[in-house]
């Protein structure tokens, strides 16, 4: 699942002309480490939802990659 998250994060970074992240871990902070703003977070939810069917922000704010991993543990990929 982490690759799925990394791919989605990099799609967001690339679409705004930023350098893709080589690796992420559970402690990677979307705003502080990757420079995400609210538009980027909104885009990330769409991209992950398209792949997994899950809206990662449905229950509140997400800050770190580990929180996403907890929400997407055993989802069958679409």
């Amino acid at each position, binding site marked *: 699942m982490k690759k799925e998250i990394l791919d989605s994060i990099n799609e967001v970074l690339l679409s705004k*002309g930023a350098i893709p992240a080589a690796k992420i871990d559970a402690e990677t902070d979307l705003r502080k480490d990757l420079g995400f703003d609210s538009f980027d977070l909104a885009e990330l939810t769409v991209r992950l939802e398209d792949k997994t069917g899950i809206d990662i922000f449905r229950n509140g704010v997400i800050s770190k990659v580990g929180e996403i991993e907890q929400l997407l543990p055993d989802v069958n990929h679409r």
Partner: protein
Amino acid sequence: MSTIDNKPWFVDEIAKTSTSYDELLRLVNIPLDHLFDLLTGDAQGFLVVLTKALLLDAEVDIHEFENGRCLLGEVLCIRDRNGHDNTSADRIVSHQTLVDRIINSKARLTLATSGTTGQPKRITHQINTLLRQVRLGDRYKSNVWGFAYNPSHIAGLQVFFQGLLNKNTIINLFQNPRDIVYENLEKYKITHVSATPTFYRLIVPCEKVFKCVSHITLGGEKSDNRIIENIKRVFPNSKVFNVYASTEAGSLFATNGSSFSIPDTLTDKIKVDNLEVYIHQSLIGELMDKKMEGEWYATGDLVEWVDDTKLSFRFVSRKNEMINIGGYKVNPVKIEDVIYSACSVKYVSVYGRANSVLGSIIVADVVLNEGQILSELALLSSISKLLHAHEVPRKVYFSDSININKNGKISRCDNKK
């Protein structure tokens, strides 16, 4: 007695039907109940029954026509027949009699707006409202119409009346594949086409050239310079007009450019207030929900002034199509224009998708031209410098087709939910 008249009235290559004016006169003299048994639910059947209803001065409730799949009695709910059905004294014996009866018909037609974004509204028209823009005369007699609208919507009805009352041949192009459209254009030497920009994007660009077409009209959606340039290449002898029309009032005025001016005859009946077009109640039918502002109907069509004189304007969007993105009001039509201009895609539809972070997020559905290669990243790179950050689509979906509603317009809605 009627004379033999084999001039084709309505030709439908898909339904494999061709009806002459003589046959039309025969059909409209048949009692209505028998017509329902006799005719099928294609565009020709719809228009014959509609014509019959006009001759009966009936109240007609028109529902959504679905080509070949509708039951005529359900699409055309006809009440209060005041005419004298099938009496010998009342027979329609010539085209001129038919024209006179239609022009003086007391029928009332209730139809729905297309509801591109919101709920469709019901609106009732008298015949004179629908005929207001019909031009009659010898100069129109040899026109051949390509019929490219849904016949149950106001634009289709207006093309139908223009053709029928001038005894023109009407060729059905509605929902035809592009190859059939090309065949029809050549085979029948179609001179006039009126359609949405979405229809023209189906058929242009094209390697062929159709010199027979002299008049092209675009309506129902905002057009752009690229589509008009492509139209002029494929139809080199055509004059191209943009028409401003609404289900509430029919077509009101036209331009051969992108900016409109209110014609002198309508200056007291159409106004622009707070960059929105308003139509006076004297021009519109009877709205079922009566949402009027005094004597004025707010169309929801938003414009911008072309110059400081505030005499010319161009359309920018529909009020209910604006998308709220984190507090910013975003115009999807502007974004579509930028994508068409920068990337030359075949179709694009921009809309808001519900999002738990921002409320809505801008996404785009895109159909590429045949053989065109374009990645999401390349598309976004091409347009990101031309738009504000909050206007840039955050996800682009490529597909082979796009949702086109029954009125021939691109539907701006999220079907991925």
